């Protein structure tokens, strides 16, 4: 099934060249979790990253549905 991964700011360096505005489309097996999807990219998977599903705070073991977007960015005080 097709899902999207969006990486923000410095994490964008980890995206393949076909990514547009930080977003890449991925074809993943049914049952793929948030964690499995984001593990494909070389970003820290500890608390130095914030990872959300469709903008919502979820457990990393949440299975994805078609069209979902997983977004990750580096945890740093800003704004």
């Amino acid at each position, binding site marked *: 099934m097709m899902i999207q991964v*969006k990486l*923000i*700011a*410095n994490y*964008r*360096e980890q995206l393949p060249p076909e990514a547009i*505005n*930080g977003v890449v489309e991925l074809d993943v097996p049914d049952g793929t979790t948030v964690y499995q999807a984001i593990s494909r990219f070389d970003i820290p998977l500890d*608390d130095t*990253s*914030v990872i*959300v599903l*469709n*903008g*919502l*705070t979820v457990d990393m073991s949440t299975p994805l549905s078609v069209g979902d977007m997983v*977004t990750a*960015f*580096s*945890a*740093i*005080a*800003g*704004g």
Partner: protein
Amino acid sequence: MYGWHLKVLRVNLTTQKITQEDVDPKIARDYLGGRGWAIHYLYKEMDPMADALSPENVLIFATGPLTATPAPTGNRYMVVTKSPLTGALAHSNSGGEFPTWMKRTGFDMFIFEGKSSKPVYLFVNEDQIELRSAVHLWGKDAHETTDILKAETSAEARVACIGQAGENLALMAAIMNDKHRAAARSGVGAVMGSKNLKAVVAMGNKNPPLHDPEGMRTLSVNTSKEVGADVKKGSNMRIYGTSYVPQVTNTLGILPTRNFLQGTFEHVNNIDGDALKNQYLIRHTPCYRCPLSCGRLTEVPDGPYKGKGEGPEYETISSLGTGCGVSNLAALVKANYLCNEYGMDTITTGMTIAAAMEMYEKGYISEEIIGMPLKFGDHDAMIAMIKLMAFREGFGEDLAQGSYRLAEKYGHPEIAVTTRKQEFPGYDPRGSQGMGLLYATSNKGASHMEGDVAYEEVFGVPVKENPLTTEGKPELVKHFEDSFALMDSSGLCVFVAIRYAFNKDRMILPLRLAEMMNLSTGAQYSPEEVMIAAERVYNLERMFLIKAGSTEDTLPYRMLHEPLPDGPAKGKVVELDKMLPEFYALRGWDEKGVPTKQKLMELGLPLN
């Protein structure tokens, strides 16, 4: 005592009399410095009911015990006064270089009273202290003023000043320092203008003596190295400054868009950090002694928006940009430059124009009154409004009063997204509930810098909190408010000091910050004591607010009754009722939000 000079410079602008005073060491310790000292003096010295633009208002510039020390980011000062925008307390923070230079004059604090009969500026070079005519500077913008003053005093001097907005008493006027840095919020520049004080020029070599210079040096070097190591790994703040944030808040659906009618902006890619970096970034510009260096020099090289300056920061992108529905980056950068030159808070400026745009589109204000069409997304009209506002010309007279008074005047107060008449910053609280509680209770009106729980709800620092829930938020808000009072009193920048103020388990003891304060001052604070001192500061600020007559802790109509129509937080309003009683109980305040006698006694605060 060390760290502090324990010296205040008092300038009576009415009599032109300048005096020097010592600070009681007990007061110094109990109120920390910076924001804490300032509220102690303000509370003691002025009637909180006084008109903010009258000579009775007192304007305080205050550095902290870590300002002008080797502590990384010890480059801040606070401007504290009564706000003409909110009628409540104003405390606005700024960095750059001026605050360090100010402390090197040998004074921790400058207090301005009264009103000069003619425009003046204050020049301080250690013992050479003079009020000088500023007649030749009146009408000049903040950049010209800075250049002229450096030319006529010394290239070694640093300048804080107002632009035309402050002279004209526009209620969003800022005090600019080092041209591009701003003590921005709550109209502090209008207070300066009302006193006919155009600028303050500071220089000197009196670094504060340190209690343990060697220990301070070691801890500072180590802290700098830690920050530096993170920067090397690739820090968003170094690469983008705060301009990376629109993508984050847009993802969470809390990016203020078209005056908070929406929480996502369809053109966010046009005005985000990557667009800015790729098109206009020249280089990074740190404040003094900052290993993070989040400032950015930018230039629009040609075209109608040609210009050069610093920024824009996130808060400018979310107000003059998405807030106004503007997606033209060059125009947005230009608008930011104009605000810096005229000396204006970009948040209140942008969100006031955004409110006017909504009122125009809904037919509440006509084209005749405005002088032109004012649709969301019209970047040229947005720029025109900034100019009118700074000079209070035509419709600018209405705009210069901020969005609350504007919306009220034209019969639609529900359009204004403010608390205590101050415009919201760049986090829609319907999708970040803790921010909702913060905006509602903030002693200075809506402000992220009162205790930025977005660090947890949005940025995951030190831990990620679900922004859509209310559980645990009262405690979080209290802790962030007190921690910000501590950081603002210390003289450090919150972007870096947050590392010293929090641990990963979010507890609660600011070990390293207390250690730095001790190495500087020798005050031998325990971490518990600095948190109690911060709570003391916060409660005294609350008392000022109550005496100023502005006590209701609530949110504007849109936040309580109009669910977000889009994005991940779709359907949400702020559930303030669920959080407020618990917050008051945690604070030791009564059900109206007034500190109880017991709380005041516990903190050693005056009972009346």
